[in-house]
């Protein structure tokens, strides 16, 4: 159905038009004539018979205040410290804790370390050129939150305390209620940060992370399958309807998990670059207002793009590196931008891990593609660089709005420059790039108990899965405990990309558009970039834990507009 041409029935060509709105006058002319408000939209019109039309264009956006690139050093993420909790955490909720189901298998995995992360409204300097510190929602005052370093076989509890303003006090985007999810954790439902289990200040919730290998209570008793070990995870708020603003305001951090292969020591195990040379990088693009405050557009249902790229909470930082190998744990913290990273001097990336799961073997690549919430661990070897050499980490993926990438790669001189490496010193390097990393677990797709098909759709600007919208009380699938299934994800919603995330266990891609997966897709993943007209067939497992979990688009703006569903693992 084609609508009537705008303005046809109104014939107002002779009256009411701003003098400046005549054809051919641009925004600057309008500004000169004082006719344009300061909002940064463009008043244009098409032909003399049509009414004024406000055109959304990329270059209309009021840009963030200017900031000098490479003025700030890349901050190293501070490591969370083991602290005693009072009251001590327990199987059932303790005094001051938000309601939750009792921790599953608590006595089997009594916490050996405990942490407290306090969500509060604080200030943060994203760049010294911004006119004022930005008000953020942070964990322990840090953007990103403290880095949790954990080990397999060492269960922990993280007490996520809400000390944000009350709902009544708060003004602006986001909602000061939280439910913290450990992304890719093999976590019991009650500690998974379910979107509906949010709580306000001054409550806390003790999330129990047993740091146990998948299969421990099912296929690989009692210790789980070592090939299921995870390494680079992250935690973030998951409060439904408000995840995008809450995470945008800062409620996220990273989590590194070690085992006897990936040891955190370059003299042992796989001897991956470790210690000061194992560097988590949290990427997040943001838009800033003239006063230095972050801007979140609540009237956008498609996805938000920022014009400032932050890494570990700083805009365009530099990082002094030594002539040796580094492991970078790269996380796309969203909300809606996709990246394809290149190094300006053509240095390759040695891709070792997808979504925190070590690959069977390293794969050397010219570029790294990371959709929202995906993680890539890559080794970069600066040993052949010269002292004083500067290398820019460039994002060359073109993206104009929340739809996802345009499919076009920008030329190097048009790229977004995200981070600068400066080669400044020499350092010992005992690390290796092993020929093999972690064997993929053996799976049996023929043993799948069910096949489910999920269509990710957009009709009339509404995000749906199989024609339905998220409802925390509606259970859309009930896989049985310790079974496996085939899940087929389809995206026919012309032109839109959806990074789809499934909780509890990572999946294995069986087919993508009826082809066998290649390269780094032959891996365990927890986010799949479901591009336009794409269909993937995934092998899913539902081991060890019972309860409710979500699947959702991780373009958090789509997620907040209900591109999410609940499924439950049942006995």
């Amino acid at each position, binding site marked *: 159905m084609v609508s009537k041409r705008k303005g046809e029935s109104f014939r107002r060509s002779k009256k009411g038009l701003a003098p400046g709105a005549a054809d051919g006058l641009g925004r600057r002319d309008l500004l000169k004539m004082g006719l344009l*408000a300061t909002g940064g939209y463009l008043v244009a019109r098409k032909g003399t018979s049509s009414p004024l039309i406000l055109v959304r264009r990329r270059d209309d956006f009021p840009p963030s205040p200017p900031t000098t690139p490479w003025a700030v050093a890349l901050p190293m993420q501070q490591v969370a410290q083991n602290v005693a909790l009072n009251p001590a955490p327990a199987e059932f909720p303790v005094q001051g804790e938000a309601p939750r189901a009792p921790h599953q298998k608590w006595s089997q995995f009594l916490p050996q370390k405990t942490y407290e992360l306090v969500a509060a409204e604080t200030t943060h300097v994203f760049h010294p050129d911004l006119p004022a510190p930005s008000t953020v929602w942070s964990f322990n005052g840090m953007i990103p939150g403290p880095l949790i370093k954990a080990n397999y076989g060492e269960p922990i509890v993280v007490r996520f305390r809400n000390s944000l303003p009350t709902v009544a006090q708060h003004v602006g985007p986001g909602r000061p209620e939280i439910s913290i999810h450990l992304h890719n954790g093999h976590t019991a439902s009650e500690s998974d940060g379910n979107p509906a289990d949010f709580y306000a200040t001054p409550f806390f919730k003790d999330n129990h992370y047993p740091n146990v290998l998948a299969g421990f209570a099912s296929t690989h008793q009692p210790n789980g399958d070592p090939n299921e070990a995870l390494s680079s995870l992250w935690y973030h708020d998951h409060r439904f309807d408000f995840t995008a603003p809450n995470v945008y305001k800062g409620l996220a951090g990273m989590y590194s998990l070690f085992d006897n292969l990936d040891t955190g020591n370059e003299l042992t195990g796989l001897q991956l670059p470790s210690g000061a040379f194992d560097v988590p990088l949290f990427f997040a693009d943001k838009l800033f207002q003239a006063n230095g405050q972050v801007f979140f557009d609540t009237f956008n249902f498609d996805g938000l793009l920022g014009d400032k790229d932050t890494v570990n909470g700083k805009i365009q930082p530099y990082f002094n590196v030594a002539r040796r190998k580094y492991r970078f744990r790269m996380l796309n913290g969203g909300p809606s931008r996709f990246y394809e990273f290149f190094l300006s001097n053509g240095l390759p990336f040695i891709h070792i891990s997808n979504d925190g799961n070590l690959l069977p073997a390293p794969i050397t690549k010219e570029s790294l593609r990371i959709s929202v919430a995906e993680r890539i661990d890559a080794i970069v070897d600066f040993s052949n660089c010269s002292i004083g050499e500067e290398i820019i980490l460039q994002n060359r993926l073109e993206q104009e709005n929340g739809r996802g990438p345009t499919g076009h790669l920008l030329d190097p001189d048009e790229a977004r420059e995200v981070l600068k490496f400066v080669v400044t010193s020499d350092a010992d390097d005992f690390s290796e790039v092993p020929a093999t990393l972690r064997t993929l677990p053996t799976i049996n797709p023929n043993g799948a108990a069910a096949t489910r098909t999920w269509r990710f759709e957009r009709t009339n600007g509404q995000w749906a899965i199989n024609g339905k919208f998220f409802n925390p009380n509606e259970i859309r699938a009930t896989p049985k405990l310790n079974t496996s299934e085939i899940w087929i994800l389809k995206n026919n919603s012309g032109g839109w990309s959806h990074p789809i995330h499934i909780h509890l266990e990572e999946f294995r891609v069986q087919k993508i558009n009826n082809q066998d997966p290649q390269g780094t897709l032959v891996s365990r993943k927890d986010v799949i970039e479901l591009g336009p007209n794409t269909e993937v067939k995934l092998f899913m497992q539902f081991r060890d834990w019972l309860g409710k979990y979500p699947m959702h688009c991780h373009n958090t703006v789509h997620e907040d507009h209900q591109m999410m569903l609940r499924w439950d693992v049942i006995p």
Partner: protein
Amino acid sequence: MNFLARFGAYALSGCLPVALVLSTDGPPRTGPGGHFSPAGFPNLLLRSHEGKEVRFYDDLLKGKVVVLHFFYTRCDGVCPQTVENLLEVQRILGERVGRDVFLHSISLKPDEDPPERLAAYAKEVGAGPGWLFLTGEVDVVERLRRGLGFVDPDPEVDKDKSQHVGMVLFGNEARQSWVACPGGSSPALMAEQILWMVPEPEERAGGGGPTDPDRTPILPGGKTK
């Protein structure tokens, strides 16, 4: 049906260039992409199905918890379901509609939907007090549609009114808190979401406190769906 005749002087005033209307409104009204800033909405003129002139900010938003969407009376696409769901929301919220919560349905086809037609429509669907059906000068409606983000990034899709954005926006103007959900969402859930925006007398220091993990939403006269 002659729109100008129906709206008279009002239509003429609506022909003021949008830029001028906004520039006289004081503080910046828009964020990126021409979207409104929740810190300040333009005070554009609309007309309700009751035949009253209303100002978008002063009369419809200021200090209120508002549910707002775009529709047209002859829509045979998403609108009937959305309006049906909003009727259910109205039933669930009962007398709070018009007291704590205000519903605004703005016509995307103001030329087809003059106040009289909206009045007939409101009566036909059974909309109660506190629910306004609104029309206005075409530029004004277009400005509101764009400013509130009910836009498709594909200009061809955006032109096709049968594909109009079916989201329902709800928010608390004073708190500058706005969220949208699909119009086809569960009405019980929608009612719950809308009530998040309402300052509750029983609101604790925590502003609502934690949710029960296995809760079923308890809504006045509501059913869980």
